[in-house]
């Protein structure tokens, strides 16, 4: 069988893709399944439906405290990494300057480093500076970790931006700030929202940096790590995990929808101008 362009399409390829998706999704889908299972062990056959594991979360003050910490960290990290990401992404897509490659390399480096080494080196510096470990140190560290993700989203959003629009606005007498607000921002806003959502999601699930830098205030993953030692607490943890899974998927879907709408709009505008 031959596909478009004479590129071979074999019959086994779709089957392989199906198997691969099963491999990817099976472990993820197990979490919600067992979180509704009326037994404290995680084995088949299932023992009937219950929502008691979810109900038990509400009375759990340690968990709620950790959730509050995660929220504070997540929001701060999302805002900080997006602001820093905007500066860098705009500089990289708008201007030509020397040292672009090493600068990009440094900012993207956390993707290519073992996280434990980033965590350990930060821990040494922060303790040397005499800082107490707290949510602030977690935020400082996670921003480094989230920047590459924020940058990827922002660069792809800024890349299609037509610079002549800004020049036209400036030539017509608008100030630099006015130009940014009225011309640039509406075009790049979807990328900025995407970056906020993606950074928040990454922060929400980040464990290693939070584990090393959080001191006595755990975030949700650090709290979960502490619970994993107790087999009896597993179903409750699975319920919590399923909720976090749901939030992550919702945020990512939202970010994807915003990004795609913007893409369509830009394309439509381009077609209109042509």
């Amino acid at each position, binding site marked *: 069988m031959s596909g478009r362009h004479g590129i071979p399409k074999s019959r086994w390829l779709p089957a392989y893709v199906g198997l691969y998706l099963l*491999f990817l999704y099976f472990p993820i889908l197990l979490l919600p399944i067992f979180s509704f299972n009326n037994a404290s062990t*995680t084995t088949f056959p299932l023992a009937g439906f219950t929502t008691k594991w979810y109900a038990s979360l509400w009375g759990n003050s340690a968990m709620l405290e950790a959730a509050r910490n995660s929220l504070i960290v997540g929001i701060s990290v999302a805002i900080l990494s997006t602001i820093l990401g905007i*500066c860098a992404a705009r500089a990289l897509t708008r201007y030509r*300057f020397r040292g672009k490659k090493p600068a990009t390399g440094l900012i993207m480096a956390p993707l290519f480093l073992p996280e434990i080494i980033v965590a350990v080196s930060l821990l040494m510096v922060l303790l040397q500076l005499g800082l107490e470990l707290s949510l602030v140190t977690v935020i400082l560290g996670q921003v*480094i970790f989230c920047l590459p993700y924020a940058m990827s989203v922002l660069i792809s959003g800024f890349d299609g931006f037509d610079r002549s629009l800004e020049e036209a606005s400036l030539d017509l007498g608008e100030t630099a700030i006015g130009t940014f607000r009225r011309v640039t921002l509406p075009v790049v806003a979807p990328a900025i929202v995407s970056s906020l959502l993606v950074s928040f999601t990454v922060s929400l699930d980040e464990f290693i940096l939070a584990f090393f830098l959080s001191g006595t205030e755990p975030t949700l993953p650090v709290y979960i790590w502490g619970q994993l030692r107790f087999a009896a607490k597993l179903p409750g943890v699975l319920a919590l995990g399923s909720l976090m899974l749901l939030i992550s998927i919702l945020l990512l879907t939202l970010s994807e929808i915003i990004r795609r709408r913007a893409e369509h709009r830009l394309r439509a505008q381009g077609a209109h101008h042509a």
Partner: protein
Amino acid sequence: MAVLPGIEVEHRPSDPPKSRTRWIASEEASGLALISPTLLYALALLFLPVLIVIAYSFWTQDYLTIDRTFTLENYRTALGEPIYQDLLVRSLVISLVVSLVTVTVSYPIAWFISFHGGVHKNLWLFLITVPCWTSYLLRVMSWKVILGYGGVMNTGLLSIGLIDKPLTTLLYNSNAVVITLVHSWAAFAILPIYVSLEKVDRSLIEAAHDLGDNKLMSFLRVTLPLSLPGVISAFLIVMIPTVGDYVTPKLVGGKDGVMIATAIQAQFGKGANWPLGAALSVTTMVVVSAIAGLVVLLLKLLVRVTK
């Protein structure tokens, strides 16, 4: 998903107007000024800390005081003690196996999306990336549930009669670590390969067919060499971070699956020997980079030979 880690982004600023001669100079200044907050942040909280780790690895610690005389003692321990040797070798082998397996099993998926994804390419990419955004801890935990003694795999195999008592060889060994890591890093391998496949000029493949190459030959001589940059990115983005993975070996590795991160963490916790922890970190980074570099060279060589 718009997040494509490990891919160099091409920047195409429009040509500067010819009349303004000092444009380049001012443009350079504006660019640097704009990137400086981010750059300073990364310098202060990433670059500087790594330098400090390197410095520490040459110092010694006596209880709470740091002795700043230069010494190679920590490296002697890191490279000479059998326990650290074992952990380092095991970590390297595991990360090498994980990265090679992940890249191999992911290539057909990237190929499928790029060549047969049609109008739904974005949806496919989204589907592939969603699992990698879910809690890392719980994903690992899920594998523990699947591979455990009373786990999903064993009960499944028992019920269809393939085995008559639960297998104990599924969990708490290196294989469990490899399976879990391959699952965790799938999207990170697919995305870079997909991006480089997207750049492959389809007419070149057609040309190869027209000139009489069969499917395999045209793949080996056209598609694979042209997608090599993506394969290399994928390989590096999986291999280097996995060597220092902490959670997976802790949860599913058991005694046989302990990796170097556990030893590093111990030096910053109860062991409290920062210089040794620093030396272990530096050693791991240097050795893993060297091996990754070697594999990249081999890949390039292999592709040149098959061409």
